[in-house]
């Protein structure tokens, strides 16, 4: 528990980070630093996106797998680190 907190603190301490969400394999957020509504929204939408991306990569090359995903938008950048069981979503505003 403490490790989890510590890790999150480290990430949060980076410049421009707006929020962190940890999502389980089904898309249900486990831990978050943002408000509930945005958390739920991000989790639901990004979960589908990651699954799609992963399937794309694996379709092209079954030996391959998705390791990291960055979605760059006008206002901020969303980084998603997928794993077997969980996702880590970090939202950063780099120019901030």
């Amino acid at each position: 528990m403490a490790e989890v907190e510590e890790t999150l603190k480290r990430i949060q301490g980076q410049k421009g980070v707006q929020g962190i969400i940890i999502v389980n394999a089904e898309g249900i957020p486990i831990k978050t630093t943002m408000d509930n509504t945005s958390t739920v929204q991000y989790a639901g939408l990004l979960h589908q996106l990651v699954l799609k991306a992963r399937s794309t990569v694996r379709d092209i090359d079954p030996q391959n797998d998705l390791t990291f995903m960055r979605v760059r938008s006008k206002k901020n950048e969303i980084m998603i680190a997928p794993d077997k069981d969980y996702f880590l979503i970090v939202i950063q505003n780099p120019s901030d």
Partner: protein
Amino acid sequence: MPPKRPKSGKGSSGSKRKSKDDDDPDDIFPMVLTSATQQLFGCRADEDVTGESPYKLLRKDDIVQDMKKRAAVSDFSPVKQTVLDYPEDEILLVFDRDFLYGQSFYLVLTPEAKERILHPPKPETAEAEVIENDAIKTPEPRQWISQGSEQEIENECVKETREKLCIKFSRVRRKFGAPVCFSDHNADFIECPSYKDSRFSIKQMQRDCGLQAVPTLQSSSAQTQRKVLRNIHTQYTPRELSDEDKENIHQSESLRNFLKTVTPRVLHALQQAEIMDEFTDDRKALSSAAKDDDSNEQVYEDLMLVRVLANRAYTKDKTIRCINWHPTIQGVIAVALTERRETQLNESTDLTVKQHFILFYSCKNSTTLLLLEGPDGIFAFDFSPSDPNIIVGGCANGQVVLWDISAYVTYLQGTQPGGKKSSVNTDTFASDDKDKKTPVVRFCAASSGESVQEAPITDVQWLPPTFEVTKTGEAVENKNKISVQFVTCSPCAIMFWDVRVSKQWSSWASGKKHTTAHSVSETFKHLGRWWKPLFKITPPMINTRRDYSPLKFSLEHYTCTDDNTAGTTDDPADGESSEVVPDYSQLRTRSAQTLKPLEDVNTRMYVGTQEGVVVYTDWKQDNKESGHLHNAKSLHHGVVNTVQRSPFYKDTILTIEDWNFAIWKEGVTDGPIFTSPTSETAYTAGCCSPSRSTDFFIGNEDGSIEVWDLLKKTKEPVQVYKHVIKARITCIKSWSATTSKHYYLAVSDDVAAVFVFRLPKSLYKKESLGLEKFFELEEDRLKDFQRRVAKMKKEADELRKKGETNKQIKTPEEQKEEEIEMKEYKEYLTLEENILKGLGLWQAPAEA
């Protein structure tokens, strides 16, 4: 065909008798005479009868004796009978020396032949000649020799086979004499029709037949009630884990491992992002920063025509002089209709009572909501800012009329329920009978007919409720907080009117009660017929005695800053709150002393005149000098048809006249700070854009709208919407819809149709710079210009003065110079003359 006769055997026997058939076949019988006989009769051949005389007459008796004597041996036995029958006594015997008939002798059996032979007829000589002649001319008829043609003739002849039948018909006696009808009748052949013999019948045991199968098709339709199920709404909530589960997961090993693996990546990415943003395009970033304020390539979209409002029943042959948006009710436009062609009273033979209306249109459904009737064509009208149900209008005959439409507000709002329920006021018109008929509201007050001038009222505007004006023109505070005064403008004068009852008149009005017309609102009954303006201004011209003819004016809208706490204690009964509709009849004008004068009200206004002059004048009549007039600038060449204040800048005024427009700034009295170049088509109307402070919309004579943006282009309009309307544009008014955040333009044209346009998004954007700087620049430029003009003028004056003084000094020198010049010129002239004479081209110069 005659039946064929069997061929007679005569033909064949005929040929045998050929030798016998001589000329006289019956008369000649050839015979042979023995020598004994010859001696007996004395006709011995070649002794008694010779060739020359072959004839020998024998007596019949001798022949008979001979025959008796010798009976059968006699040579004459074959002719025994003939001799016995011979009538004459002598029979001729002819010696046939040449054996013509086959024997040596022949006996002529008939006496005629004897005669003929012995005594040939005497006219033989003549006949012989004739015969000889004939023989010479015509061939002798020869004896016909049968060739067989007689048979054919016989074949062809029709001979009766049987004798003719004779049949006798007779009729009944009683039909004697009756006409008979004979007709032909074919000898019919007897028919024998076939009939079914009943004795026997043949049964057909087998018959060939063909079959074709045709499918029976039947079209029918059915309709099901089945509805396609479709989700209309779905609602979902995200799944969430309970706290316990979360705790469990937090404790789990897997999460820790996950974080261990993932964290370095994330930190790496974060660091990268922090260091450098690899997605930015520097060039774009540069240009986008510059673009934000001034977009030169802005595409101007079209004005979107939202509605066309025209009510044919009322707008025929009419034109619109003034349109106004209703200040409070969204989407209601009021238009003032006037006759398009001004017919003079003498000429008009039309005896029908003409009704003059202000129409209220609803933008939402293009219906005519309400009609306000006026005594004459209404040229201008205005809604009262404090109470939009009070409308003042100026007529063509100079009258000012007031309407109160409080009872009909529901019509305007479009919430008019059916008929009876709505109006509590019993004065409602016949509109109750028919729901569809547009209600007509008659004016409830009009200015007096005596003070009417000839000129129509061209502009009317309510004074804002923040201040009011006394008789002398001083601005004082308005206790009632409602607009009770308005200003009208006509080519004769500018007049200030008050809606309230003044002390002088109250006695009159109460005394003379006149009945109002049925259904007219009684709000302004107190005004009566002797309603006169408070005071008048006529802006005089500078150099002449005449006055300007003002057409349009513009006041500064003054908003009261203080709460007006002082002096509200008296007359609480009259000081109604703004929510309750004030009872105008109870309002009284106050004397000037009781009210606090407001110093900071700008009592000046801009007036556009018919002469094309924009006059900036003060309506305060404190000083009786002719210095009412602060400034008048003649800029325009034609009639000034619009004077408008910009809604963004209080001190900027737009004036439009026929060929150009100008922008004035209040306070700058030298002239307009900006004038547009002369346009090709006449400007007829214009307004400031509600969305942007820099835009102006100017309407043309040919129905096109020009958009001017002074920051972008000053020489020409930024955008021209060509021919959005077919007729001449008479009025443009803008409006911003607060609900939908759109901006609308109402454009009226010469044929009394109103077009409502929505401004495109491109004209919405508010720019950051604004016109202030532009105006400042222009101001400076103007000032500079004026200075230079003044300077030049001064210099010109000085020069002139100098010129006058210097003339006397300079003249002798000048004269000398002139003389020299004249000499040279004369020499030249003589030279020219000589040369030309030499050439022969010399022409005598005209007498100077």
